[in-house]
């Protein structure tokens, strides 16, 4: 008896309609998971380094395009120098002749969270994200 009622429920019109809707929702979910994963992969290491000396933009380096590690040396007017090492997705100052060596001790940066600053030589390295950026909590 209970078998019969459950089978009639299973064959009812509403059951099939509900199934269609559930399938629709599941397709939407799968699509959104795909989109999230796709965007995650795209965003990875997609940063560009902006190097400023004395407040002026010197060069920009797209860190996602770097395939081999390379060293660049920057000089200021007073003879100070910073050797910057650029690798895939990260940037660091490996050597400098400034007195405190804050920039060297800072190590490599991978994100736009904290910039590298060498105050004695007025050198600033900032990472900025490539492409469109999602709105943050405040704008929402």
């Amino acid at each position, binding site marked *: 008896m209970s078998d019969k009622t459950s089978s009639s429920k299973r064959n*009812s019109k*509403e*059951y099939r*309609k*509900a199934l269609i*809707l*559930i399938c629709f*929702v599941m397709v*939407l*979910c799968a*699509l*959104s*998971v795909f*989109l*999230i994963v796709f*965007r995650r992969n795209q965003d990875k290491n997609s940063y560009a380094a902006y190097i400023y000396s004395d407040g002026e933009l010197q060069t920009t380096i797209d860190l996602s395009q770097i395939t081999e590690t390379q060293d660049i040396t920057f000089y200021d007017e007073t003879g100070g120098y910073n050797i910057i090492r650029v690798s895939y997705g990260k940037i660091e100052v490996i050597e400098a002749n400034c007195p405190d060596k804050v920039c060297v001790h800072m190590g490599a940066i991978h994100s736009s969270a904290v910039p590298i600053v060498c105050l004695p030589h007025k050198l600033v390295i900032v990472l900025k994200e490539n492409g*469109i*950026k*999602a*709105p943050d*909590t405040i*704008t*929402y």
Partner: protein
Amino acid sequence: MSIKKMTTLALYTVIALTIFVIESALPPLVPIPGIKLGLANIVTLLLLKNYSPGETFLVLIMRIVLSVFFAGQAMSLLYSLAGGLFCFAAMYAVNRFLSGKFLFVTSIIGALFHNAGQLLVAFLITSTTAVFLYAPYLILSGTITGLFTGLCAHFAQKYLLPHMKRNT
């Protein structure tokens, strides 16, 4: 509208409002804004199943307008109204389509449309297409929270409503 009906609907509005206020006092589950359980939707679902669409609509609008006074800023009225209206329209259509069965499916579709309405308002206010980057996250969360509130409504329908009907 009879006094009895009016009182019953007012009672439902109070239930929905209470659920809404308590829920907004809870800390958010995930750090993404716009994601919450939407438990007040349980009342909307139950009304949609047991009462007429017009009465449901009345309770929904009353709940949204009053909730702004209790727990929100004036800005959130726009979001709530858009979300609520989209949600109601979708749930009404789905409920008719399924002739009142499978409440949780109705709830999921309602939650998705609620999120869609809010995204649309966010887009109209900020006029940046970047808000649509939230859509995948909102679809996923809407499905989960919609399923949850839908099941709540299903069990309320099964175990609570018979008692309420008997006493009114």
